[in-house]
Protein backbone atom coordinates (compact mmCIF):
# COMPACT_ATOMS: atom_id res chain seq x y z
CA UNK A 1 0.00 0.00 0.00
CA UNK A 2 2.82 2.35 0.92
CA UNK A 3 4.44 1.43 -2.41
CA UNK A 4 1.26 2.26 -4.23
CA UNK A 5 1.07 5.65 -2.52
CA UNK A 6 4.70 6.62 -2.94
CA UNK A 7 4.97 5.50 -6.53
CA UNK A 8 1.85 7.20 -7.78
CA UNK A 9 3.81 9.78 -9.77
CA UNK A 10 6.22 7.27 -11.28
CA UNK A 11 5.93 6.50 -14.95
CA UNK A 12 7.61 3.35 -16.15
CA UNK A 13 8.54 4.90 -19.51
CA UNK A 14 10.24 7.75 -17.70
CA UNK A 15 12.27 5.35 -15.59
CA UNK A 16 13.24 3.40 -18.68
CA UNK A 17 14.43 6.63 -20.26
CA UNK A 18 16.63 7.39 -17.25
CA UNK A 19 18.00 3.87 -17.35
CA UNK A 20 18.78 4.16 -21.07
CA UNK A 21 20.49 7.52 -20.71
CA UNK A 22 22.58 6.20 -17.83
CA UNK A 23 23.44 3.08 -19.76
CA UNK A 24 24.74 5.18 -22.67
CA UNK A 25 27.37 6.87 -20.53
CA UNK A 26 28.21 3.76 -18.55
CA UNK A 27 28.36 1.77 -21.77
CA UNK A 28 30.92 4.13 -23.33
CA UNK A 29 32.88 4.01 -20.09
CA UNK A 30 32.94 0.22 -20.00
CA UNK A 31 33.79 -0.05 -23.72
CA UNK A 32 36.74 2.30 -23.37
CA UNK A 33 37.95 0.54 -20.24
CA UNK A 34 37.68 -2.76 -22.09
CA UNK A 35 39.59 -1.34 -25.06
CA UNK A 36 42.26 0.01 -22.75
CA UNK A 37 42.61 -3.36 -21.04
CA UNK A 38 42.66 -5.16 -24.38
CA UNK A 39 45.26 -2.87 -25.91
CA UNK A 40 47.30 -2.63 -22.73
CA UNK A 41 49.73 -5.16 -24.15
CA UNK A 42 50.45 -2.89 -27.12
CA UNK A 43 50.86 0.24 -25.06
CA UNK A 44 53.07 -1.48 -22.55
CA UNK A 45 55.28 -3.57 -24.80
CA UNK A 46 58.43 -1.58 -25.26
CA UNK A 47 59.21 -2.95 -28.68
CA UNK A 48 56.00 -1.91 -30.28
CA UNK A 49 55.38 1.35 -32.00
CA UNK A 50 52.63 2.30 -29.57
CA UNK A 51 54.80 1.83 -26.54
CA UNK A 52 57.76 3.71 -27.95
CA UNK A 53 58.59 6.47 -25.58
CA UNK A 54 62.32 6.43 -26.09
CA UNK A 55 64.40 8.57 -28.33
CA UNK A 56 68.01 7.96 -29.25
CA UNK A 57 70.02 11.11 -29.79
CA UNK A 58 73.51 11.69 -31.10
CA UNK A 59 75.66 14.59 -32.15
CA UNK A 60 76.81 15.42 -35.66
CA UNK A 61 79.48 13.10 -36.86
CA UNK A 62 82.99 14.20 -36.23
CA UNK A 63 85.94 13.51 -34.06
CA UNK A 64 84.51 14.80 -30.86
CA UNK A 65 80.91 13.77 -30.74
CA UNK A 66 80.85 12.31 -27.25
CA UNK A 67 78.46 13.72 -24.66
CA UNK A 68 80.05 15.41 -21.69
CA UNK A 69 78.76 14.80 -18.19
CA UNK A 70 77.52 18.41 -18.06
CA UNK A 71 75.44 17.81 -21.13
CA UNK A 72 73.99 14.66 -19.62
CA UNK A 73 73.13 16.53 -16.43
CA UNK A 74 71.44 19.20 -18.52
CA UNK A 75 69.42 16.57 -20.38
CA UNK A 76 68.37 15.00 -17.09
CA UNK A 77 67.18 18.30 -15.73
CA UNK A 78 64.69 18.90 -18.56
CA UNK A 79 61.07 18.49 -17.43
CA UNK A 80 60.09 16.54 -20.55
CA UNK A 81 62.84 13.95 -20.09
CA UNK A 82 62.23 11.23 -17.51
CA UNK A 83 65.67 9.69 -17.58
CA UNK A 84 68.65 9.19 -19.82
CA UNK A 85 70.83 6.24 -20.55
CA UNK A 86 74.18 6.45 -22.29
CA UNK A 87 75.37 3.90 -24.81
CA UNK A 88 78.82 2.71 -23.77
CA UNK A 89 80.85 1.00 -26.40
CA UNK A 90 83.65 -1.47 -26.27
CA UNK A 91 87.09 0.06 -26.42
CA UNK A 92 88.48 -2.87 -28.33
CA UNK A 93 88.16 -4.54 -31.70
CA UNK A 94 85.71 -7.35 -31.99
CA UNK A 95 85.93 -10.27 -34.35
CA UNK A 96 82.96 -12.61 -34.33
CA UNK A 97 82.98 -15.97 -36.02
CA UNK A 98 80.16 -18.41 -36.49
CA UNK A 99 80.49 -21.99 -37.61
CA UNK A 100 77.46 -23.73 -39.08
CA UNK A 101 77.73 -27.51 -39.20
CA UNK A 102 78.44 -28.64 -42.77
CA UNK A 103 79.07 -25.10 -43.90
CA UNK A 104 82.07 -22.94 -44.07
CA UNK A 105 82.29 -20.60 -41.10
CA UNK A 106 81.79 -16.90 -41.43
CA UNK A 107 83.53 -14.26 -39.48
CA UNK A 108 83.13 -10.56 -39.29
CA UNK A 109 84.47 -7.56 -37.51
CA UNK A 110 81.89 -5.86 -35.41
CA UNK A 111 81.42 -3.79 -32.27
CA UNK A 112 79.68 -4.14 -28.95
CA UNK A 113 77.63 -1.61 -27.04
CA UNK A 114 75.80 -1.58 -23.79
CA UNK A 115 72.93 0.46 -22.43
CA UNK A 116 71.11 0.44 -19.14
CA UNK A 117 68.75 -2.58 -18.90
CA UNK A 118 65.67 -0.41 -18.31
CA UNK A 119 65.86 0.87 -21.88
CA UNK A 120 66.02 -2.55 -23.44
CA UNK A 121 62.74 -3.88 -24.80
CA UNK A 122 63.60 -7.43 -23.89
CA UNK A 123 63.09 -8.95 -20.50
CA UNK A 124 64.87 -12.22 -20.13
CA UNK A 125 66.40 -13.71 -17.07
CA UNK A 126 69.40 -14.83 -19.11
CA UNK A 127 70.23 -11.21 -19.87
CA UNK A 128 73.09 -10.95 -17.41
CA UNK A 129 76.77 -11.65 -17.23
CA UNK A 130 79.40 -11.84 -14.57
CA UNK A 131 83.05 -12.76 -14.73
CA UNK A 132 83.39 -16.51 -14.96
CA UNK A 133 80.20 -17.02 -16.95
CA UNK A 134 80.68 -19.29 -19.91
CA UNK A 135 78.65 -17.43 -22.44
CA UNK A 136 77.80 -13.82 -23.15
CA UNK A 137 74.24 -13.02 -24.21
CA UNK A 138 73.95 -10.65 -27.15
CA UNK A 139 70.94 -8.69 -28.38
CA UNK A 140 70.98 -7.76 -32.04
CA UNK A 141 68.57 -5.56 -33.98
CA UNK A 142 65.69 -7.45 -35.50
CA UNK A 143 66.44 -6.19 -38.97
CA UNK A 144 69.86 -7.88 -38.84
CA UNK A 145 68.07 -11.21 -38.79
CA UNK A 146 66.03 -10.15 -41.78
CA UNK A 147 69.12 -8.97 -43.60
CA UNK A 148 70.78 -12.26 -42.93
CA UNK A 149 67.79 -14.45 -43.81
CA UNK A 150 66.69 -12.70 -46.95
CA UNK A 151 70.00 -11.31 -48.09
CA UNK A 152 73.05 -13.19 -47.01
CA UNK A 153 71.65 -16.68 -46.34
CA UNK A 154 69.73 -16.81 -49.61
CA UNK A 155 72.64 -15.74 -51.72
CA UNK A 156 75.29 -17.81 -49.99
CA UNK A 157 73.25 -20.97 -49.48
CA UNK A 158 73.37 -20.81 -45.71
CA UNK A 159 70.35 -21.94 -43.70
CA UNK A 160 67.76 -19.38 -42.70
CA UNK A 161 67.27 -18.88 -39.01
CA UNK A 162 64.56 -17.55 -36.72
CA UNK A 163 64.92 -16.00 -33.28
CA UNK A 164 64.67 -19.37 -31.55
CA UNK A 165 67.18 -21.19 -33.69
CA UNK A 166 69.60 -18.32 -33.65
CA UNK A 167 70.04 -18.83 -29.93
CA UNK A 168 71.57 -22.20 -30.63
CA UNK A 169 74.23 -20.74 -32.92
CA UNK A 170 77.52 -20.52 -31.06
CA UNK A 171 79.50 -17.35 -31.67
CA UNK A 172 83.13 -16.98 -30.90
CA UNK A 173 84.19 -13.47 -29.98
CA UNK A 174 87.78 -12.39 -30.18
CA UNK A 175 88.24 -9.12 -28.34
CA UNK A 176 91.52 -7.30 -28.95
CA UNK A 177 92.21 -4.33 -26.70
CA UNK A 178 95.30 -2.24 -26.25
CA UNK A 179 96.66 -4.50 -23.57
CA UNK A 180 95.23 -7.89 -24.15
CA UNK A 181 93.25 -10.15 -26.44
CA UNK A 182 90.65 -12.54 -25.10
CA UNK A 183 88.15 -15.03 -26.49
CA UNK A 184 84.60 -15.37 -25.32
CA UNK A 185 81.72 -17.64 -26.16
CA UNK A 186 78.56 -15.77 -27.02
CA UNK A 187 75.05 -16.45 -28.23
CA UNK A 188 72.25 -14.32 -29.54
CA UNK A 189 69.67 -14.04 -26.79
CA UNK A 190 67.04 -12.12 -28.68
CA UNK A 191 66.44 -9.50 -31.33
CA UNK A 192 65.32 -5.99 -30.49
CA UNK A 193 62.99 -3.86 -32.54
CA UNK A 194 63.85 -0.76 -30.64
CA UNK A 195 67.57 -0.50 -30.28
CA UNK A 196 69.60 -0.50 -33.40
CA UNK A 197 72.84 -1.81 -31.99
CA UNK A 198 74.64 -4.93 -30.93
CA UNK A 199 74.17 -5.06 -27.18
CA UNK A 200 75.88 -6.99 -24.45
CA UNK A 201 75.14 -6.70 -20.72
CA UNK A 202 76.66 -3.57 -19.18
CA UNK A 203 78.61 -5.69 -16.70
CA UNK A 204 80.35 -7.51 -19.54
CA UNK A 205 81.30 -4.35 -21.37
CA UNK A 206 82.60 -2.62 -18.26
CA UNK A 207 84.61 -5.69 -17.35
CA UNK A 208 86.18 -6.22 -20.75
CA UNK A 209 86.85 -2.51 -21.29
CA UNK A 210 88.74 -2.38 -18.04
CA UNK A 211 90.60 -5.59 -18.67
CA UNK A 212 91.51 -5.23 -22.33
CA UNK A 213 92.01 -1.50 -22.71
CA UNK A 214 92.41 -0.14 -19.22
CA UNK A 215 93.80 3.16 -20.42
CA UNK A 216 91.11 4.07 -22.91
CA UNK A 217 88.36 6.34 -21.68
CA UNK A 218 84.76 5.35 -22.13
CA UNK A 219 82.91 7.82 -24.28
CA UNK A 220 79.20 8.18 -24.59
CA UNK A 221 78.33 9.05 -28.13
CA UNK A 222 74.69 8.13 -28.16
CA UNK A 223 72.12 8.68 -25.48
CA UNK A 224 68.75 7.02 -25.14
CA UNK A 225 66.10 9.26 -23.62
CA UNK A 226 63.02 8.13 -21.77
CA UNK A 227 60.52 10.85 -22.52
CA UNK A 228 56.89 11.54 -21.71
CA UNK A 229 56.08 12.26 -25.32
CA UNK A 230 58.77 12.00 -28.00
CA UNK A 231 56.85 14.33 -30.28
CA UNK A 232 56.56 17.05 -27.64
CA UNK A 233 57.46 20.30 -29.48
CA UNK A 234 59.34 21.56 -26.42
CA UNK A 235 61.55 18.49 -26.51
CA UNK A 236 62.16 18.78 -30.24
CA UNK A 237 62.98 22.48 -29.93
CA UNK A 238 65.40 21.74 -27.14
CA UNK A 239 67.12 19.03 -29.17
CA UNK A 240 67.33 21.32 -32.18
CA UNK A 241 68.81 24.15 -30.12
CA UNK A 242 71.51 21.80 -28.89
CA UNK A 243 72.03 20.40 -32.40
CA UNK A 244 71.35 16.88 -31.26
CA UNK A 245 70.14 14.48 -33.92
CA UNK A 246 67.50 11.84 -33.57
CA UNK A 247 65.72 9.34 -35.75
CA UNK A 248 62.53 10.85 -37.10
CA UNK A 249 61.00 7.40 -37.27
CA UNK A 250 60.82 7.32 -33.49
CA UNK A 251 58.89 10.58 -33.56
CA UNK A 252 56.41 9.32 -36.15
CA UNK A 253 55.69 6.25 -34.09
CA UNK A 254 55.25 8.21 -30.95
CA UNK A 255 52.86 10.60 -32.66
CA UNK A 256 50.69 7.67 -33.65
CA UNK A 257 50.79 6.33 -30.13
CA UNK A 258 50.06 9.74 -28.74
CA UNK A 259 47.08 10.31 -31.02
CA UNK A 260 45.66 6.89 -30.21
CA UNK A 261 45.96 7.51 -26.52
CA UNK A 262 44.48 10.96 -26.94
CA UNK A 263 41.47 9.58 -28.80
CA UNK A 264 40.87 6.92 -26.17
CA UNK A 265 41.18 9.54 -23.44
CA UNK A 266 38.71 11.84 -25.20
CA UNK A 267 36.22 9.01 -25.59
CA UNK A 268 36.75 8.08 -21.96
CA UNK A 269 36.14 11.72 -21.05
CA UNK A 270 32.93 11.81 -23.06
CA UNK A 271 31.80 8.59 -21.40
CA UNK A 272 32.52 10.04 -18.00
CA UNK A 273 30.71 13.25 -18.87
CA UNK A 274 27.61 11.42 -20.09
CA UNK A 275 27.72 9.20 -17.00
CA UNK A 276 27.95 12.18 -14.68
CA UNK A 277 25.13 13.93 -16.53
CA UNK A 278 22.96 10.85 -16.39
CA UNK A 279 23.67 10.41 -12.68
CA UNK A 280 22.63 14.02 -12.27
CA UNK A 281 19.51 13.34 -14.31
CA UNK A 282 18.56 10.36 -12.17
CA UNK A 283 19.24 12.31 -8.98
CA UNK A 284 17.19 15.25 -10.21
CA UNK A 285 14.32 12.99 -11.07
CA UNK A 286 14.43 11.18 -7.76
CA UNK A 287 14.29 14.62 -6.16
CA UNK A 288 11.36 15.53 -8.34
CA UNK A 289 9.58 12.31 -7.50
CA UNK A 290 10.11 12.88 -3.78
CA UNK A 291 8.91 16.46 -4.11
CA UNK A 292 5.84 15.43 -6.08
CA UNK A 293 4.98 13.01 -3.28
CA UNK A 294 5.82 15.42 -0.52
CA UNK A 295 2.36 15.40 0.96
CA UNK A 296 2.09 11.63 0.89
CA UNK A 297 5.55 11.27 2.43
CA UNK A 298 4.84 13.67 5.26
CA UNK A 299 1.45 12.15 5.96
CA UNK A 300 2.89 8.66 6.06
CA UNK A 301 5.61 9.82 8.38
CA UNK A 302 3.06 11.38 10.73
CA UNK A 303 1.09 8.15 10.73
CA UNK A 304 4.17 6.46 12.17
CA UNK A 305 6.03 5.29 9.07
CA UNK A 306 9.75 5.71 9.61
CA UNK A 307 11.99 7.58 7.18
CA UNK A 308 13.73 4.32 6.40
CA UNK A 309 10.46 2.65 5.43
CA UNK A 310 9.61 5.54 3.12
CA UNK A 311 13.10 5.89 1.68
CA UNK A 312 13.20 2.17 0.90
CA UNK A 313 10.56 2.64 -1.80
CA UNK A 314 12.72 5.26 -3.55
CA UNK A 315 15.90 3.24 -3.04
CA UNK A 316 14.22 0.38 -4.84
CA UNK A 317 13.37 2.66 -7.78
CA UNK A 318 16.90 4.07 -7.97
CA UNK A 319 18.49 0.63 -7.66
CA UNK A 320 16.29 -0.73 -10.41
CA UNK A 321 17.24 2.12 -12.76
CA UNK A 322 20.87 1.56 -11.88
CA UNK A 323 20.73 -2.20 -12.30
CA UNK A 324 18.95 -1.98 -15.65
CA UNK A 325 21.38 0.65 -16.95
CA UNK A 326 24.44 -1.27 -15.82
CA UNK A 327 23.17 -4.51 -17.31
CA UNK A 328 22.48 -2.74 -20.62
CA UNK A 329 25.89 -1.06 -20.51
CA UNK A 330 27.66 -4.32 -19.74
CA UNK A 331 25.84 -6.17 -22.50
CA UNK A 332 26.67 -3.36 -24.89
CA UNK A 333 30.33 -3.45 -23.98
CA UNK A 334 30.55 -7.22 -24.40
CA UNK A 335 28.84 -7.03 -27.79
CA UNK A 336 31.28 -4.29 -28.79
CA UNK A 337 34.19 -6.41 -27.70
CA UNK A 338 33.20 -9.05 -30.23
CA UNK A 339 32.58 -6.45 -32.91
CA UNK A 340 36.00 -4.90 -32.29
CA UNK A 341 37.91 -8.16 -31.96
CA UNK A 342 38.72 -8.56 -35.71
CA UNK A 343 40.09 -5.00 -35.75
CA UNK A 344 42.09 -5.60 -32.61
CA UNK A 345 43.53 -8.80 -33.98
CA UNK A 346 45.24 -6.63 -36.62
CA UNK A 347 47.14 -5.09 -33.72
CA UNK A 348 48.00 -8.61 -32.57
CA UNK A 349 45.75 -8.42 -29.54
CA UNK A 350 44.90 -11.93 -28.50
CA UNK A 351 41.19 -12.45 -27.82
CA UNK A 352 40.78 -13.02 -24.11
CA UNK A 353 38.13 -12.52 -21.49
CA UNK A 354 40.28 -10.55 -19.07
CA UNK A 355 38.74 -7.30 -20.23
CA UNK A 356 35.23 -8.71 -19.74
CA UNK A 357 36.17 -9.71 -16.19
CA UNK A 358 37.45 -6.18 -15.63
CA UNK A 359 34.20 -4.75 -17.03
CA UNK A 360 32.10 -6.95 -14.77
CA UNK A 361 34.16 -6.00 -11.72
CA UNK A 362 33.96 -2.35 -12.70
CA UNK A 363 30.19 -2.63 -13.19
CA UNK A 364 29.74 -4.16 -9.77
CA UNK A 365 31.87 -1.42 -8.24
CA UNK A 366 29.93 1.28 -10.09
CA UNK A 367 26.67 -0.31 -8.96
CA UNK A 368 27.75 -0.43 -5.34
CA UNK A 369 29.14 3.08 -5.24
CA UNK A 370 26.25 4.67 -7.15
CA UNK A 371 23.72 2.70 -5.14
CA UNK A 372 25.32 4.00 -1.97
CA UNK A 373 25.34 7.51 -3.35
CA UNK A 374 21.68 7.38 -4.43
CA UNK A 375 20.74 5.90 -1.10
CA UNK A 376 22.51 8.60 0.82
CA UNK A 377 21.03 11.29 -1.37
CA UNK A 378 17.46 9.96 -1.09
CA UNK A 379 17.80 9.61 2.67
CA UNK A 380 19.02 13.16 3.04
CA UNK A 381 16.24 14.50 0.78
CA UNK A 382 13.58 12.70 2.79
CA UNK A 383 15.17 13.74 6.04
CA UNK A 384 15.21 17.33 4.85
CA UNK A 385 11.55 17.08 3.88
CA UNK A 386 10.46 15.61 7.19
CA UNK A 387 12.18 18.09 9.45
CA UNK A 388 9.79 19.49 12.05
CA UNK A 389 8.08 22.73 11.05
CA UNK A 390 8.43 22.04 7.33
CA UNK A 391 5.38 19.82 7.25
CA UNK A 392 2.14 20.68 5.57
CA UNK A 393 0.28 19.89 8.73
CA UNK A 394 2.00 22.33 10.99
CA UNK A 395 0.56 25.15 8.94
CA UNK A 396 -2.75 24.56 10.65
CA UNK A 397 -3.23 26.51 13.79
Amino acid at each position, binding site marked *: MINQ*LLKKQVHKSQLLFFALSSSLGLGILLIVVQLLVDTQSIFNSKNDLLGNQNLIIYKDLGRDNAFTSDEITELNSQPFINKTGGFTHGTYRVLASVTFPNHAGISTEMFLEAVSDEFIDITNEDWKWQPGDKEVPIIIPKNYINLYNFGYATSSGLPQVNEKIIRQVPIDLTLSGTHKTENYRAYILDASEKINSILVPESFLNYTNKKLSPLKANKISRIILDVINPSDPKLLEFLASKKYNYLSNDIQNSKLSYVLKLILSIVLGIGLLITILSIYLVITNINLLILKNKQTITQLHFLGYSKAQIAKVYHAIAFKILAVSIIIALTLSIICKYIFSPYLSVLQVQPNITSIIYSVILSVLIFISLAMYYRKHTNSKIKQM*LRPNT*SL*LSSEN
Partner: protein
Amino acid sequence: MQVNIQSIVPDYFTPASSEVWSKNFEFQPNSKYLVKAVSGSGKSSLFNFMYGLNNRYSGSILFNDTSISSFSDTDWTTIRKQQIAIVFQGLKLFPELTALENIQLKNTLTNHKTETEILEMMSQLEVDQLAHKKAETLSYGQQQRIAIIRALCQPFKLLLLDEPFSHIDKAQITNAITLVNKEVAANQATLIIASLGDTYNIDYTKTILL
Protein backbone atom coordinates in the same frame (compact mmCIF):
# COMPACT_ATOMS: atom_id res chain seq x y z
CA MET B 1 0.40 9.27 29.97
CA GLN B 2 1.17 12.28 32.06
CA VAL B 3 1.74 15.40 30.00
CA ASN B 4 3.22 18.50 31.65
CA ILE B 5 2.91 21.78 29.85
CA GLN B 6 5.38 24.36 31.12
CA SER B 7 4.71 27.91 30.01
CA ILE B 8 4.75 27.29 26.29
CA VAL B 9 4.25 30.14 23.84
CA PRO B 10 4.30 29.78 20.07
CA ASP B 11 7.09 31.70 18.31
CA TYR B 12 5.19 32.47 15.17
CA PHE B 13 2.12 34.24 16.48
CA THR B 14 1.19 36.08 19.62
CA PRO B 15 -1.72 34.28 21.22
CA ALA B 16 -4.31 36.01 23.34
CA SER B 17 -4.16 35.38 27.04
CA SER B 18 -5.58 31.95 27.87
CA GLU B 19 -5.37 29.01 30.27
CA VAL B 20 -2.80 27.34 28.02
CA TRP B 21 -0.21 29.77 26.74
CA SER B 22 2.48 30.77 29.25
CA LYS B 23 0.78 28.65 31.92
CA ASN B 24 1.91 25.55 33.77
CA PHE B 25 -0.54 22.67 33.90
CA GLU B 26 -0.75 18.96 33.26
CA PHE B 27 -2.83 16.31 31.61
CA GLN B 28 -3.20 13.32 33.94
CA PRO B 29 -3.32 9.67 32.89
CA ASN B 30 -6.78 8.12 32.55
CA SER B 31 -8.37 11.55 32.34
CA LYS B 32 -10.36 13.42 29.75
CA TYR B 33 -9.80 17.03 28.79
CA LEU B 34 -11.63 19.46 26.60
CA VAL B 35 -9.62 22.25 25.05
CA LYS B 36 -12.20 24.83 24.17
CA ALA B 37 -11.29 27.67 21.88
CA VAL B 38 -12.39 29.94 19.14
CA SER B 39 -10.86 29.27 15.80
CA GLY B 40 -7.40 30.71 15.26
CA SER B 41 -6.42 30.62 18.91
CA GLY B 42 -3.87 27.83 18.37
CA LYS B 43 -5.61 24.51 19.09
CA SER B 44 -3.96 22.75 16.22
CA SER B 45 -0.65 24.34 17.12
CA LEU B 46 -0.92 22.90 20.61
CA PHE B 47 -1.69 19.45 19.17
CA ASN B 48 1.18 19.75 16.66
CA PHE B 49 3.55 20.65 19.48
CA MET B 50 2.46 17.59 21.43
CA TYR B 51 2.65 15.36 18.31
CA GLY B 52 6.17 16.56 17.50
CA LEU B 53 5.32 18.17 14.18
CA ASN B 54 6.21 21.65 15.23
CA ASN B 55 8.78 22.84 17.71
CA ARG B 56 8.57 26.55 17.18
CA TYR B 57 7.62 27.43 20.73
CA SER B 58 9.32 28.46 23.91
CA GLY B 59 8.72 26.62 27.18
CA SER B 60 8.64 22.88 27.46
CA ILE B 61 6.37 19.87 27.18
CA LEU B 62 7.12 16.77 29.23
CA PHE B 63 5.81 13.26 28.62
CA ASN B 64 6.12 11.30 31.86
CA ASP B 65 8.73 13.81 33.02
CA THR B 66 10.84 13.62 29.86
CA SER B 67 11.08 16.73 27.73
CA ILE B 68 9.83 15.99 24.25
CA SER B 69 12.53 18.22 22.78
CA SER B 70 14.99 15.44 23.60
CA PHE B 71 13.15 12.92 21.42
CA SER B 72 14.90 11.78 18.27
CA ASP B 73 13.12 11.19 15.03
CA THR B 74 13.10 7.46 15.72
CA ASP B 75 11.61 8.13 19.14
CA TRP B 76 8.82 10.08 17.53
CA THR B 77 8.13 7.30 15.05
CA THR B 78 7.77 4.85 17.92
CA ILE B 79 5.64 7.28 19.89
CA ARG B 80 3.34 7.79 16.92
CA LYS B 81 2.93 4.04 16.60
CA GLN B 82 2.53 3.16 20.25
CA GLN B 83 1.88 6.17 22.46
CA ILE B 84 -0.05 8.95 20.78
CA ALA B 85 -2.99 8.59 18.43
CA ILE B 86 -4.33 11.65 16.67
CA VAL B 87 -7.20 12.79 14.48
CA PHE B 88 -6.01 15.85 12.62
CA GLN B 89 -8.42 18.63 12.00
CA GLY B 90 -7.61 18.22 8.31
CA LEU B 91 -8.01 14.41 8.71
CA LYS B 92 -5.15 13.69 6.30
CA LEU B 93 -6.68 10.65 4.68
CA PHE B 94 -5.22 9.48 1.37
CA PRO B 95 -7.91 10.26 -1.20
CA GLU B 96 -6.70 7.64 -3.66
CA LEU B 97 -7.04 4.81 -1.14
CA THR B 98 -10.30 3.25 -0.05
CA ALA B 99 -11.69 3.87 3.42
CA LEU B 100 -10.54 0.45 4.59
CA GLU B 101 -7.09 0.88 3.02
CA ASN B 102 -6.68 4.18 4.82
CA ILE B 103 -7.37 2.43 8.11
CA GLN B 104 -5.20 -0.54 7.23
CA LEU B 105 -2.33 1.76 6.38
CA LYS B 106 -2.08 2.51 10.07
CA ASN B 107 -3.03 -0.94 11.24
CA THR B 108 -0.32 -2.70 9.21
CA LEU B 109 2.20 -0.65 11.15
CA THR B 110 0.85 -1.72 14.50
CA ASN B 111 -1.11 -4.94 13.85
CA HIS B 112 -3.33 -3.68 16.61
CA LYS B 113 -6.70 -4.77 15.23
CA THR B 114 -7.92 -7.60 13.09
CA GLU B 115 -9.82 -6.79 9.93
CA THR B 116 -12.99 -8.10 11.62
CA GLU B 117 -12.46 -5.68 14.49
CA ILE B 118 -11.93 -2.83 12.06
CA LEU B 119 -15.10 -3.70 10.17
CA GLU B 120 -16.89 -3.97 13.49
CA MET B 121 -15.78 -0.43 14.42
CA MET B 122 -16.80 0.77 10.96
CA SER B 123 -20.24 -0.70 11.38
CA GLN B 124 -20.57 0.94 14.78
CA LEU B 125 -19.97 4.29 13.10
CA GLU B 126 -22.11 3.22 10.13
CA VAL B 127 -19.38 3.54 7.56
CA ASP B 128 -18.92 -0.20 6.94
CA GLN B 129 -20.74 0.09 3.66
CA LEU B 130 -18.11 2.55 2.51
CA ALA B 131 -15.14 0.30 3.28
CA HIS B 132 -14.21 -0.17 -0.34
CA LYS B 133 -15.00 3.31 -1.57
CA LYS B 134 -12.20 5.69 -2.28
CA ALA B 135 -11.77 8.25 0.48
CA GLU B 136 -12.09 11.09 -2.03
CA THR B 137 -15.67 10.01 -2.78
CA LEU B 138 -16.77 10.20 0.87
CA SER B 139 -18.42 13.14 2.55
CA TYR B 140 -16.40 15.06 5.10
CA GLY B 141 -18.42 13.61 7.96
CA GLN B 142 -17.81 10.09 6.68
CA GLN B 143 -14.10 10.87 6.31
CA GLN B 144 -14.02 12.11 9.90
CA ARG B 145 -15.39 8.80 11.12
CA ILE B 146 -12.79 6.89 9.05
CA ALA B 147 -10.05 9.09 10.53
CA ILE B 148 -11.33 8.35 14.05
CA ILE B 149 -11.24 4.61 13.41
CA ARG B 150 -7.77 4.92 11.90
CA ALA B 151 -6.56 6.69 15.04
CA LEU B 152 -7.91 3.88 17.19
CA CYS B 153 -5.96 1.21 15.27
CA GLN B 154 -2.93 1.50 17.50
CA PRO B 155 -2.07 1.22 21.16
CA PHE B 156 -2.04 4.69 22.71
CA LYS B 157 -1.62 6.46 26.02
CA LEU B 158 -2.74 9.82 24.67
CA LEU B 159 -5.51 10.40 22.17
CA LEU B 160 -5.65 13.81 20.52
CA LEU B 161 -8.87 14.65 18.70
CA ASP B 162 -8.86 17.97 16.86
CA GLU B 163 -12.48 18.99 16.21
CA PRO B 164 -13.28 15.40 15.33
CA PHE B 165 -17.04 15.60 15.16
CA SER B 166 -17.51 18.92 13.40
CA HIS B 167 -19.33 17.39 10.42
CA ILE B 168 -21.06 14.48 12.09
CA ASP B 169 -24.70 14.37 13.13
CA LYS B 170 -25.71 13.96 16.76
CA ALA B 171 -26.59 10.25 16.60
CA GLN B 172 -23.27 9.43 14.98
CA ILE B 173 -21.40 11.61 17.47
CA THR B 174 -22.89 9.51 20.27
CA ASN B 175 -21.75 6.32 18.52
CA ALA B 176 -18.30 7.77 17.94
CA ILE B 177 -17.96 8.91 21.54
CA THR B 178 -19.00 5.48 22.79
CA LEU B 179 -16.31 3.92 20.64
CA VAL B 180 -13.68 6.46 21.65
CA ASN B 181 -14.53 6.10 25.35
CA LYS B 182 -14.29 2.34 25.11
CA GLU B 183 -10.87 2.46 23.44
CA VAL B 184 -9.58 5.13 25.82
CA ALA B 185 -10.66 3.01 28.76
CA ALA B 186 -9.11 -0.12 27.26
CA ASN B 187 -5.82 1.72 26.71
CA GLN B 188 -6.01 3.56 30.03
CA ALA B 189 -5.20 6.64 28.05
CA THR B 190 -5.50 10.38 28.36
CA LEU B 191 -8.03 11.94 26.00
CA ILE B 192 -7.77 15.52 24.81
CA ILE B 193 -10.48 16.87 22.55
CA ALA B 194 -10.21 20.26 20.91
CA SER B 195 -13.53 21.84 20.14
CA LEU B 196 -14.90 25.20 19.17
CA GLY B 197 -17.66 24.96 21.75
CA ASP B 198 -19.50 21.65 21.81
CA THR B 199 -18.80 19.45 24.81
CA TYR B 200 -20.30 16.30 23.20
CA ASN B 201 -21.69 15.15 26.55
CA ILE B 202 -18.41 13.74 27.72
CA ASP B 203 -17.57 13.70 31.39
CA TYR B 204 -14.35 15.74 31.34
CA THR B 205 -11.85 15.87 34.14
CA LYS B 206 -11.21 19.44 33.17
CA THR B 207 -12.12 21.97 30.53
CA ILE B 208 -9.34 24.26 29.48
CA LEU B 209 -10.09 27.51 27.76
CA LEU B 210 -7.73 28.47 25.01
